[in-house]
């Protein structure tokens, strides 16, 4: 990317291009199944982005991120069903609830790092799953919550595939814009320093625990938004939303797309749902293939497909390969 070019591609151009693609896809593609799938993929890509705030941002593997995904789904569902709130308000409340939950959970668990953090966060999903099963008067127990009135967002009917896709896709773009701003902010730099070397960061005056907690509290509402946006698609919220398989799907998306790239999770989400759709893949075959891909990627290109591509590009352009691993 030489800066001497007359026309430099910057973030704003990319966003406009992305919005144009969304508008074109929303108006030109008429197959309702494909459009709905694209909407659901956008919603799930939000969850993958949330996971990448932790994985790419902090360098932690948040196996329990589906706690916030599920909290978002449950809070929005309860808000709509029990209190008759409009979807927008329920969504906001769901995000607020998840931030509060992240503050408490993070204060307790973010002292831990690496595998210990992953194990404990995974364990929390078990606790929350049991709670969702047993607190029947709040969560509806194993049967879950269903039978929602028509869900609208800013006047757009979400039961209609095109409306659902447009709302999810625009919220996805908005989230990426926010995350890009965060990445370039002082806070983003602090997070990056914590990821690269927490001890050095602390010696430079960064409050490591505080920055980690802030990143965790940033990731939670994104997951909650994803959880709430899945309701118009699934039409039901059961304790299954807390199942670790949701985290597995989103984690595979992040790793496929590359955790070092801001839109990596979005690319990963597209690969993860488009390829199985075209090959009519069984969900288990999908997990099998993508998990095997992850193992291969981790052995040969720990930075994800993005790193693989740039390594290939370097081969062709004769660029020097960066030293791999430290």
């Amino acid at each position, binding site marked *: 990317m030489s800066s001497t070019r007359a026309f430099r591609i910057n973030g704003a151009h990319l966003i406009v291009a992305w919005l144009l693609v969304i508008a074109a896809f929303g108006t030109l593609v008429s197959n309702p199944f494909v459009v709905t799938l694209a909407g659901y993929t956008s919603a799930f890509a939000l969850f993958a982005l949330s996971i990448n705030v932790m994985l790419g941002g902090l360098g932690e593997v948040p196996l329990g991120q589906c706690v916030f995904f599920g909290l978002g789904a449950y809070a929005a569902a309860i808000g709509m069903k029990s209190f008759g709130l409009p979807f927008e308000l329920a969504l906001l409340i769901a995000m607020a609830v998840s931030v509060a939950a992240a503050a408490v959970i993070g204060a307790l668990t973010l*002292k831990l790092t690496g*595998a*210990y953090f992953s194990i404990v966060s995974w*364990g929390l999903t078990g606790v929350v799953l049991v709670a969702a099963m*047993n607190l029947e008067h709040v969560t509806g127990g194993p049967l879950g919550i269903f039978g929602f009135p028509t869900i609208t967002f800013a006047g757009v009917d979400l039961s209609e595939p095109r409306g659902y896709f447009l709302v999810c896709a625009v919220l996805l773009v908005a989230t990426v814009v926010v995350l890009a701003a965060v990445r370039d902010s002082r806070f983003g730099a602090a997070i990056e320093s914590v990821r690269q070397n927490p001890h050095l960061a602390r010696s430079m005056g960064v409050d490591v625990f505080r920055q980690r907690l802030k990143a965790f509290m940033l990731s939670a509402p994104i997951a909650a938004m994803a959880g709430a946006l899945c309701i118009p698609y699934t039409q039901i919220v059961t304790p299954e939303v807390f199942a670790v398989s949701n985290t597995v799907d989103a984690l595979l998306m992040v790793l496929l797309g590359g955790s070092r790239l801001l839109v990596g999770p979005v690319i990963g989400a597209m690969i993860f749902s488009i390829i199985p759709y075209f090959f009519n893949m069984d969900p288990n075959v999908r997990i099998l293939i993508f998990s095997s891909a992850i*193992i291969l990627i981790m*052995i040969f290109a720990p930075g994800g497909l993005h790193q693989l591509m740039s390594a290939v590009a370097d081969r062709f352009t004769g660029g020097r390969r960066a030293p791999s*691993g430290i």
Partner: protein
Amino acid sequence: MDLLLQTLVNGLVVGSGYAVIAVGLTLVFGILGIVNFAHGAFYALGAYAVFLALSVGVPYLVALPIAVAVVVAVGFLIELSIVRRSLYGVGNHGSLIVTFALAQVLMALMLLIAGPDPHPVRSPFGQSNLEVFGLMVAGQRVFILLVSVAVLSAFGLWLQRSVRGQQITAVAQNPRGALYSGINVPMIRTISFMLGVGAAGLAGGLLAPITTVFPTMGNGSLITSFIVVILGGMGSISGAMLGALLIGLANALFETYVSVQWTPALGWVLVIAILLFAPQGLRGKAQLDRY
């Protein structure tokens, strides 16, 4: 009083089952520094191997060693092809993702081959109940207790008394030093990985008649082993055994006197409390990175 005694006996017997699973996990962590998220998948693999062997007419007591051999062989191949290539010395971040993906691969394979339905497994001890001093214990549970005590004490002795066992201990303490002393570190690592997953396979075969066999059975057991291993102290074998018995007892008491529905949450609350207030566990070394 009878109820309390019965509960304590149940807890100890269930805990001995946990011990076999958890020892494999703690072994792989203590020697290789890998947090093996695929441990539960090897456990399920052992259970499936027993189920398949039984379905072609092999008796249970023969099927059990066959299952362990199958799991050890699969572990050997995986160590050679994946673990050795990417996981030693990279810290637990990379090993976590790879072993987690490996678990997904193994589980998806089992799902595709054997289907999602749970299968019952018959064992010769399955139908009988033993009555000792008025306390009832299921026959299979007694068998698990006996096998786990035998295997774990034999393993402990082997580790302390044999040359190979001492080499394993040396690699666990200081791989570089062990290498300089002429120990074949890669081979010791392969053996340790095979031992670790072999223990998981044995546990799967032992517990299959009680839990039935299904592809995701490994998740629950992995979570239980994490609880046990963290309670005992990561990497400590005696700690894992002690932790297993304590968790077994705690679960049984909670189930009897508080609530069956909430029991699955108990272990996690314990683990979080331990990690926060006594991160080295019962017998482990304090080596946590904390902020």
